[in-house]
């Protein structure tokens, strides 16, 4: 089963609004994979949420995990 990834803000200009990737064990490997697929992501700042929780360290991903990539917004 794939890991589903939702991409917020202008990160979506780089990688599209959502995508699914197979065989990803944890968030560190996900980031690595994403940076290979979309090199521009490597220089972007974003927080990662897994199943609606923002995670601060490497987090195991399971079947059907939903990952969100959230960039900071400065506008007001």
């Amino acid at each position, binding site marked *: 089963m794939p890991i589903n990834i939702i991409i917020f803000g202008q990160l979506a200009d780089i990688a599209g609004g959502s995508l699914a990737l197979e065989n990803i064990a944890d968030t560190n490997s996900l980031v690595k994979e994403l940076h290979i697929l979309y090199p521009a992501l490597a220089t972007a700042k974003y927080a990662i949420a897994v199943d609606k929780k*923002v995670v601060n360290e490497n987090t195991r991903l399971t079947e059907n995990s939903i990952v969100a990539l959230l960039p900071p917004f400065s506008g007001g």
Partner: protein
Amino acid sequence: MDKKELYERYQRQVILPGFGEEGQQKLLKAKILVIGAGGLGCPVLQYLAAAGVGTIGIVDDDVVTLNNLHRQVLYSVNDIGFSKTERATHSLRQLNPGIKIIPYNERLTVQNALILLDEFDIIIDGTDNFSTRYMINDACVLMNKPLVYGAISQFEGQVSVFNSRQNDNDETVNYRDLFPNPPKEDEVLNCADSGVLGVLPGIIGTMMANETIKLITGIGETLANRLLTYNALNNQVYKLALSARTGTRLLIPENEAAFLQMDYEWLCSSERTAPIAIGSEIDAGIFNDLIAKERVDVIDVREPGEMPVVNDFSNIKIPLAELSANTSLMKSDTIVAFCQSGKRSLQAVKILSGIFGGDKKIYSLRGGIIEWKKQKQTV
């Protein structure tokens, strides 16, 4: 305002279950500070003034321009060229003469931030740049003030409440738990460069006003420890749980003196050099090369009076415990800490990396000054 008028003005919210006269009294006694009277600030100010928040401070140093009017609905064409705080104050006093509006027609800086924030119970961040956002966050953590946060980009918005608990036992989180370090200027586009749908700050700002009302009156559930995201194009709303991050506190100045020395604009400027190595140890040979070739701040983190005295190369004497309060002395992009044996300087690297993130190259002299002197003798 007499009691009858007071009752009539707020009647429709006073009759709400759980709100009552008590809720209204809480609003009338509350003091809130709105930083930024732009797209987010306008609806926040309008709704909170209308709801009867007793004291509202407004900080902004900008003037109204024509391209503000598609989203900053407090202003009209007659206001173009005039101070936003002054025009907002004028409108809000007409809307509700029974409350106190205090305009601060100035930019928030490290010099005035703590003094200003101190006068208010709740701080509302409606600013449009990262340097001020990080400054407000750090000041609110330092002063333990609830911070209502909102930010927008193009068609999307984020809302949260920082430094506040839903339940007594909850931890508190702040903006740096979500985004520890600010992006550089060119890493994220601002409204001027990327555009914003006019109604979006209206929606997000109104949500911020709602969070503020809940914080003050205690009704409902706030977005403390949650980040809400809203997409105006597809109406998708996500509520994400936030948790405290180890190390966040190290990024925030630990006291007023350290706060005053922060340079938030520099933190967000694109001229920062890319990180090359953080937290590494270097030996005497590399150290000698480095100080010969580059501008380096060498810091002696030993206590005053420790021997040997080092005057073989220029160095700044800052004991380990005083490091974080003296970061303003570190002007170069490269820092090398040393102590007697190389242990305390490693701690220094940890502390400084926490403060500067990847913005500077920070090294520890392996083996300390004792090893360095030994190497010097053998050369």
